[in-house]
């Protein structure tokens, strides 16, 4: 009798266990505080633990409601008024009010928080809770990117009482947000456990299921080795992951137990930049020829098994405010033309087969990350540049020292990859003269660029913004300051036991809110 009861109890509990999903990924974050963590690893979890005022559609261009039902922008572009939903609750059951939103956004902006991405909030005068469900976001200068930035995990709304209680342990030992999942436990560099927020019904309209989530629990597990992650997916230890080695996509596609979802939009771009004022690479013709010598098609095909998009533009051509006029200026692979350009410019080959400039061999120094990605990427570019007589010297550093090295003026070229949501997002980051020496490692200092970036940022209409950013795109592409290499598309491998999911590109976090993750009905 007792035994029977025990058995039935365990049977009843079984489905709950089956409702747990394990996501394997490469690295962990140092903490999960939305205003202080900028790692993709943090954003992935924060999108699920919390909500933002507005959300971003799969097309990466359309702003949709989230915590705010509707919003208005004043004609001068300085005041944004958000009307909040009235049914939103934190994980602890407390209703979310306008003052929570104002508190969270002001904490992000507050210099004491030391948020590395404070600039993303724009030039803020104040964020005011007009009443319980109205928030006014006041700027001192118009900022056309604002709504896009407010979709990012840095704008997640948090509960100030939990913050006061946990202090420095906020986002380390606990969290309280309004997201579809709630904090359970985090063991750094091992796993992050989050459970379903049962009261959740206010998911972004981009999801068919607006809440609550359809699985009980998500476990984010750190598995540093890529082939082990692939094995975890194949053997069912993990149900979904976007961190798959390129060689594994073929396996996932052909295996009946796994599926692959691919998003056409690729908003993570790998490139090599030139420090344009260094004597090795300060000649525009030389840089053009170098860009031309690199065979992005072969790189995509040979190193990445055709799973990435060869890049000739600095941002994805599908990104918001991409300028179609630049298409004619894109430098395509042409070895013969590259050699001709260099010959004509007077870079003669020396006795060792390498070209010379003022009697000195052309041998730019490249700084980049060690590890499988950049090692082979840099080597491929090195091989291509040898064919036009340029001897690229590679210096690859461990992740712990590379950031410091990349902030110096020691190198001529560097390797980098980055996520973005729009042209403005990318250009304001890399091409502002105020951002020298990092992230503007090119030392691109141009008054006109700064002016255009300001104009784009202050634009109150889409046309003005697109025109300003479009012109900057033209400027920098013409000057050949980068060698674009490839755009990395979002691909998520998942178990066939799950219902189909859709890949999002926001900040490279493919699962976004996770509201569509569920086991397929039998």
């Amino acid at each position, binding site marked *: 009798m007792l035994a029977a009861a025990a058995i039935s109890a365990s049977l009843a509990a079984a489905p709950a266990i089956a409702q747990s999903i394990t996501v394997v990924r490469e690295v962990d974050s140092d903490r999960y505080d939305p205003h202080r963590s900028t790692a993709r690893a943090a954003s992935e979890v924060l999108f699920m633990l919390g909500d933002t005022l507005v959300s971003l559609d799969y097309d990466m261009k359309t702003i949709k409601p989230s915590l705010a039902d509707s919003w208005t922008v004043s004609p001068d572009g300085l005041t944004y008024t958000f009307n909040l939903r009235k049914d939103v609750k934190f994980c602890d059951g407390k209703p979310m009010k306008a003052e929570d939103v104002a508190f969270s956004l002001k904490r992000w902006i507050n210099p004491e928080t030391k948020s590395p991405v404070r600039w993303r909030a724009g030039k803020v005068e104040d964020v005011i809770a007009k009443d319980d469900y109205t928030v006014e976001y006041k700027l001192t200068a118009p900022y056309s990117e604002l709504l896009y930035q407010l979709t990012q995990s840095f704008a997640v709304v948090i509960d100030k009482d939990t913050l006061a209680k946990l202090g420095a342990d906020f986002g380390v030992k606990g969290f309280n947000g309004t997201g579809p999942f709630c904090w359970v436990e985090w063991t750094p560099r091992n796993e992050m456990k989050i459970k379903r927020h049962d009261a959740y019904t206010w998911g972004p309209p981009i999801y068919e299921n607006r809440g609550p989530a359809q699985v009980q629990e998500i476990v984010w597990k750190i598995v540093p080795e890529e*082939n082990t992650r692939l094995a975890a997916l194949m053997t069912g230890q993990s149900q979904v992951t976007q961190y798959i*080695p*390129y*060689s594994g996509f073929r*396996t996932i596609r052909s295996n009946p137990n796994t599926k692959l979802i691919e998003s056409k939009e690729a908003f993570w771009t790998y490139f090599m930049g030139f420090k344009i004022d260094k004597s090795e690479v300060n000649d525009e013709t030389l840089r053009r020829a170098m860009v031309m010598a690199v*065979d992005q098609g*072969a790189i995509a095909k*040979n*190193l990445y098994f055709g799973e990435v998009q060869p890049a000739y533009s600095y941002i994805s051509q599908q990104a918001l405010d991409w300028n179609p006029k630049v298409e004619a200026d894109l430098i395509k692979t042409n070895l013969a033309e590259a050699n001709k350009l260099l010959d004509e410019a007077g870079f003669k080959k020396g006795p060792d087969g390498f070209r010379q400039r003022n009697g000195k061999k052309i041998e730019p120094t490249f700084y980049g990350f*060690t*590890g*499988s990605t950049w*090692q*082979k990427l*840099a*080597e*491929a570019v*090195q*091989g*291509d540049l*040898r*064919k036009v007589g340029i001897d690229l*010297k*590679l*210096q*690859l*550093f*461990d992740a*712990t*020292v590379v950031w410091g090295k990349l902030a110096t003026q020691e190198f001529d070229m560097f390797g980098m990859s980055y996520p973005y949501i729009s042209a403005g997002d990318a250009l304001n980051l890399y091409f502002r003269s105020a951002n020298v020496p990092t992230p503007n490692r090119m030392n691109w200092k141009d008054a006109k660029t700064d002016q255009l970036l300001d104009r784009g940022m202050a634009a109150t209409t889409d046309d003005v913004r697109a025109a300003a950013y479009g012109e900057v795109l033209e400027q920098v592409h013409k000057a050949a300051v980068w060698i674009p290499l490839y755009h990395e598309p979002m691909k998520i491998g998942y178990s066939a036991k799950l219902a189909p999911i859709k890949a999002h590109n926001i900040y490279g976090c493919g699962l976004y809110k996770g509201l569509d993750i569920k086991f397929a009905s039998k």
Partner: protein
Amino acid sequence: MTSTDIESSTPLPRPVGLLRRLASDSTVLIAGGILVTIVAASLLAPFIAPYDPYETGYAPFIPPAFMEGGTSEFLLGTDQQGRDLLSRLLYGTQATLLTGLLGVFFGGGAGVVLGILAAYFKKFDPPIMRFVDVLLSFPAILFGLAIAAVIGPGIVPIIIALSIATVPDVARVTRSTAVVVMSQEYMEAGRAIGLSDRHLIIRYLGLNCIGSVFVFLTLRFGQVILIGAALSFLGLGARPPMAELGMMAAQGRDALFFAPHISTIPSLAIFMIVLCANMLGDALRDALDPRMRNM
């Protein structure tokens, strides 16, 4: 005791017929033959390599000639960057052997000096040996990581790491051999007739130890190559495009399932070098070991 006695006890256990004994051992012949071929091929790389090892742009992933789909143009096939694998293998072996040799040379040299000093000067014994114990507690990989982090990856940090990793073992072996030699009567006699420390250390102590230390170093050589390849596999070694066997093995990992030759061929080369070095070392030890000799 006369000075003649001292002279007669040098030059030390240089066994007559060592080479002949080694030559009659088939293991030595095979292992030595292979090793000599490998070394010769790598030294002659600039002359016999069919292609430029850095030249990319041939079709990638071509399998070796003896496999289906292979072509005689590329005897060992091409790697994922479209480079000729045979040429890279020849140059890579050169780099691997060089790092191993230099690692053993510098590390062995320092170890011998430390070991002999510790045995000869009693007051230096404790500090030197404790220092060696400290070194012994650091794994070579950790050294490699730390050094590469400071001066950047490359062949030099690998050689430094390998040298440091070799020092403690060699110092221990040298010291224990030297302590035995120190207790010999001729050492005492040398001191009694007023030979200088330098003379005693170099001519009597050093030369008497060198045989067994040399055997140890031969055995150690294989291990050093292996550690070097491991460091290089982790991306701390040779700077691209320079070919190095460990690095080549690492680069082929992505393609392991459909182009296994990229990874396995350099790995096999490492295996052969280490195996042959170990077999030679073993044979050398057997030949030099007096007990084995009497049997």
